[in-house]
């Protein structure tokens, strides 16, 4: 079932760098990877003639043939399991799972084989495969179309877990994921498929590789640590925060880009400068990514923190029906409420933060 599919708007523009959507950049990354390496094969449900329910694989079957961009039987464990065998023979499969919740039948293959094959074989049999999974809500999807399943994948040693939030990252991170000799769970924020940026497919900009976070907005008051669909939201919240509080808050926004490997250094550096942190994600809060991130930040930044690390996450409920999802998803107000609870009355960090900032922000 794929009731929530919307068509990407037509890209257009007069200057050299035309607006491109995140979905188009992903498609271009697949195309370029297939053109560069004959071992790259795309397989999944409806990825061929249809071009995928989100049209990310549009044109690949026409350009590379139905063997390299293959419509498979409708069975996610089979798709992932056969991809393991293809990788064992030296191919570099890119699997598309249609929606996050439909990836669950492939979970055993992912946990028992994809993530462990390198380790089991002492490095002799790496698993250079990429599993693309559209994830997250905010698109009005009916049940099973809006899950955020990153915590399961993060809890599985041997997998990389990557999620882009920008058009440039969509291209750059997907190319890096496909080129990686390790398995990558590539989580595509559904609601950002149609987000646009000026971006040239002919000269895609270089982006940091897997395992690197990016500071999307510089700030001094507190750090919002986030990823994927919540990045634009946090940037919006940061803009709104300038008008909030006694003197306005200047929030820093860190886009993790890669949940595994987790770029602790960038996060820790940011929190040590600002002294306060809020982790923002859609995934349920209990045992979610925010818990791990908050724990690590606390361990490494204890003496720099002015307040406990807070989390703004989805509620600990099954993903709600579309007419109620706005109550579940983190929003600007909820983020600003959390920022307001960062014990500003202590007032200590502000001076401390100034001193730190003078020292070496760069």
């Amino acid at each position: 079932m794929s009731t929530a599919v919307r068509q990407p708007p037509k890209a257009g523009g007069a200057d050299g760098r035309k607006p491109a959507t995140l979905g188009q950049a992903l498609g271009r990354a697949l195309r370029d990877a297939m053109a560069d390496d004959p071992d790259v094969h795309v397989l999944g449900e409806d990825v061929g003639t249809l071009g995928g329910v989100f049209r990310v694989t549009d044109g690949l079957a026409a350009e590379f043939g139905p063997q390299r961009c293959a419509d498979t039987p409708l069975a996610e464990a089979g798709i992932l399991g056969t991809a393991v065998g293809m990788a064992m023979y030296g191919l570099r499969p890119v699997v598309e799972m249609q929606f996050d919740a439909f990836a669950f039948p492939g979970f055993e293959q992912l946990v028992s084989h994809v993530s462990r094959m390198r380790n089991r074989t002492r490095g002799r049999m790496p698993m250079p495969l990429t599993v693309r999974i559209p994830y997250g809500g905010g698109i009005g999807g009916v049940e099973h179309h809006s899950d955020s399943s990153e915590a399961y994948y993060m809890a599985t040693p041997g997998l990389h877990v990557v999620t882009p939030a920008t058009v440039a990252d969509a291209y750059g991170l997907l190319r890096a994921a496909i080129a990686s000799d390790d398995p990558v769970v590539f989580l595509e924020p559904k609601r950002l498929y149609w987000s646009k940026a000026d971006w040239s497919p002919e000269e895609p900009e270089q982006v940091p590789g897997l395992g690197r976070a990016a500071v999307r907005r510089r700030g001094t008051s507190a750090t919002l640590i986030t990823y994927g669909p919540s990045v634009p939201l946090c940037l919006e919240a940061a803009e709104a925060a300038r008008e909030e509080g006694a003197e306005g808050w200047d929030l820093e926004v860190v886009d993790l880009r890669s949940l595994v490997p987790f770029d602790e250094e960038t996060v820790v550096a940011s929190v040590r400068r600002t002294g306060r942190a809020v982790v923002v994600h859609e995934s349920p809060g209990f045992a979610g990514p925010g818990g791990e991130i908050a724990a690590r930040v606390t361990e490494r930044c204890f003496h720099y923190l002015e307040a406990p690390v807070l989390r703004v996450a989805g509620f600990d409920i099954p993903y709600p029906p579309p007419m109620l999802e706005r109550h579940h998803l983190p929003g600007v107000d909820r983020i600003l409420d959390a920022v307001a609870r960062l014990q500003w009355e202590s007032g200590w960090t502000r001076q401390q933060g100034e001193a730190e900032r003078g020292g070496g922000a760069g």
Partner: protein
Amino acid sequence: MTVLEQPGTHAPAHAPSWRPRADAAPLLPDAEPYRVLGARPDAPTGTKTKATRARSTRTGTTRAGSARTGATRTGTPRAGTAGRDTGTSGLAGEQVAAAPDAELLRRLYAAVVHGRRFNEQATALTRQGRLAVYPSSRGQEACQVAAALSLAEHDWLFPSYRDTLAAVARGLDPMEVLSLLRGDWHHGYDTRRTRVAPLCTPLATQLPHAVGLAHAARLKGDEVAALALVGDGGTSEGDFHEALNFAAVWQAPVVFLVQNNGFAISVPLAKQTAAPSLAHKAVGYGVPGRLVDGNDAVAVHEVLTEALERARAGGGPTLVEAVTYRLEAHTNADDATRYRADAEVEAWRAHDPVALLERELRQRDLWDEEAARQVEEAAEEQAAALRSRMNQDPALDPLELFAHVYAEPTPQLREQAGRLRAELAAEATAGQTNEYEAGQTDAHGAGQTDENAAGQTNENADGQTDDAARRQSVTGEPAAGGAGGRTGEETR
């Protein structure tokens, strides 16, 4: 004028999109398990007659026999009907008519005797604490050995945890094959070099791997087939179904051998499936399903060899059900007397794969006491060598635990490796053990921990793990570049 206006003239049409797809009948040629050994009442002489008898045993009916030939020889199971028209059935009949080759009989006999001794030795090693567990294939040696010997050099084998013997029979080092069950590592042999996939513990999950590998080989134009082993219990798993379906749709060069040994640990086949036979399951996928006596090494070898040849030639997958029996309990930790009667076990002992081969050799006047004694001796030597090697403690390197999780250990893993290294050093100082010291100078990926060993003693310096190699991303990013580049923490 419409049909409704003309009662009686309406010719019922098929549903609009329906069209005939495949003739199911040719996919199931064996009315009963195909046998070669002891299948001929007029043995030991008259090979021609024997073959004819074998043929009818195998096919049940002449029609089905020729149909099967059509299905399996023409390489297009869906064109089974056409296969009957090719006139190949007589030719195939001639091929089948060949009596089991004496050399093959001797080879299989030697291999099952070795296999039996290997099983006994491995089970004994569990009692001596040298193996953590051993799921024995005692009683199933014919399947194990025939599977290994039917493979061509470039074919791949996808064994389950009960198929150690198949890997050993293919020529792999028994020590390396037993690594999983000894517990020194999860897997011990070079899969790429040996073309034997790791022994797979989660049931049937390796079957889609076999399909994907075979499919990939075909896409690359290589003449490679894959043979995947599964048990009767494993056929209930979803991965079994998905693998068969993918293999059929892709016409992947893969052969599935189901060793129906009667039990999934304690649960008998009757509680596993209501299918007429496990071979019948093939029909639903449009795949030929063969039924063979799994204790008849010659029959299993013949059926598998034929199926693998067909797969390599582009004829698609085959499912083979081999009816056999697990003479031992599930593992050394199981008690088989709780779920099966001695009489049943005794009946199968009388149909022992080693005895069946010996009987055939004697009936064909091919039995040679001296040769048999040499085979026994060689098997004994092999067992003794395994015993003595198993009695050596393995060299373990705890730091290797971090070496193969990723191509490059993450900063967090390097830090954890540093912590373990410190624990080991403390243990050594306490004089408890020295064996990990080799690990201190390890050459593994986690050797990166060397430069970062300070991580655990230097936590307040953030275990700042500057690893330019990791930073050098595949996107060509310069080591220190990027929007997320280091900030104030750069200088510590």
